[in-house]
């Protein structure tokens, strides 16, 4: 019984000890545990796997994937970061730039501005194509000139009062339809995601007149194309109290963890600690600093329960990105199809091109 329990623990939990982390690697491959059938079974996977969406806000999505292996969860995270396409400014045609910001710095800043445009509506630009066509390019114009305000008070030193248009924001970028884009996208509202991104500062007489071409790209090429501010995951914490902890020890225990994790209940006049919500904990492992408490608690993580959190560049990307996660699944499926498979010798060494 005890052997089975400890085998279960080794399979399901990553245990945080005082000086290190144990059971980090997945060990449930067939033959490793007698009495367990670990051969891959799609049906068993489907029964055990579930996705729980915890929170969906304008730009954040938090969901749990339960019953999946680290390799695949990580693969999704990496694909979200690097291989899901978005639109971003790639080429900046500078007609006039008399501002203090150099051309290339300005171009760099413009490239990093997230654009609210569904990349599925566009194609990738062909290699070597300098001009761009209406199916692969989104054109924006930024034309702004700073003037002195004749109505400003004489002693004023506030630039907002003295000058017009001295701050160039992303809201000053306007979409210039190419070719038949007005017909293709009659309701479309292509603009930067945020209106209040400061691009440059101007003084009277300075102006910026640029035309920008946005293309479809992926994060692997340049980070500006990454649709997520970040995509991360953590394993679900699992805190077990090995013995009942009461009174003062209970209060100390509560302080060792993040707020809301440990709750103190009044049972029969005694204050008893209880694990209320292990999920909230960030595992500072403060409990190991208390000699009296460190052997009474087991800190672990559930090996196959991933709490994933993605912060997206643009709000509607959340909806689009659930499609993305979908298409990354499709991507993962489609891409490893080998086009050429070489079997080099009898032992089975293969070289793979994709």
């Amino acid at each position, binding site marked *: 019984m005890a052997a089975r329990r400890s085998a279960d623990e080794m399979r399901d939990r990553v245990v945080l000890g005082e000086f290190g982390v144990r059971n980090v690697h997945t060990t449930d491959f067939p033959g490793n545990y007698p009495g367990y059938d670990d051969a891959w079974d799609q049906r068993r996977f489907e029964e055990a796997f579930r996705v729980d969406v915890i929170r969906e806000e304008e730009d954040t999505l938090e969901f749990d994937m339960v019953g999946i292996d680290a390799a695949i969860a990580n693969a999704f995270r990496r694909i979200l970061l690097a291989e899901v396409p978005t639109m971003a400014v790639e080429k900046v045609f500078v007609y006039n730039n008399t501002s203090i910001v150099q051309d290339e710095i300005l171009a760099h800043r413009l490239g990093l501005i997230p654009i609210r445009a569904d990349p599925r509506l566009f194609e990738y630009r062909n290699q070597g194509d300098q001009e761009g066509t209406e199916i692969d390019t989104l054109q924006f114009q930024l034309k702004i000139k700073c003037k002195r305000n004749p109505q400003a008070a004489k002693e004023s030193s506030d630039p907002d009062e003295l000058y017009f248009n001295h701050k160039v924001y992303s809201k000053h970028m306007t979409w210039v339809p190419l070719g038949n884009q007005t017909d293709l996208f009659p309701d479309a509202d292509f603009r930067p995601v945020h209106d209040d991104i400061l691009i440059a500062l101007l003084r009277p007489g300075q102006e910026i007149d640029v035309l920008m071409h946005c293309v479809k790209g992926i994060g692997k090429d340049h980070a500006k194309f990454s649709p997520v501010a970040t995509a991360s995951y953590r394993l679900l914490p699992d805190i077990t109290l090995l013995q009942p902890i009461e009174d003062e020890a209970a209060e100390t225990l509560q302080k060792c963890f993040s707020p809301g994790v440990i709750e103190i209940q009044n049972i029969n006049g005694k204050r008893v600690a209880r694990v209320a919500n292990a999920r909230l904990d960030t595992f500072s492992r403060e409990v190991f600093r208390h000699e009296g408490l460190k052997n009474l608690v087991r800190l672990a993580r559930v090996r196959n329960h991933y709490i994933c959190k993605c912060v997206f560049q643009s709000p509607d990307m959340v909806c689009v990105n*659930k499609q993305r996660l*979908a298409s990354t699944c499709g991507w993962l499926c489609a891409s490893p199809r080998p086009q050429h498979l070489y079997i080099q010798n009898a032992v089975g060494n*293969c070289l*793979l091109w*994709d």
Partner: protein
Amino acid sequence: PLPDVEFCGYCITHPSESKINFRIQTRGALPAVEPFRKGLNDLMGVCQHVLNTFERSMKEFRAQKEEEMQ
């Protein structure tokens, strides 16, 4: 994980090249390509299922939020 595979590993020869070296060693008469093929197919199955489950969960979540709003 498959029962007849004695060794399975991969390495990426150089990060700049899109190339992966796979080594699969099987027991007995099983040709080594078989586990590889099975692995790819299984991966497709997993991804498809994850996709479906995710879409379903998102739909349920949004439906639930709509109900709460009303």
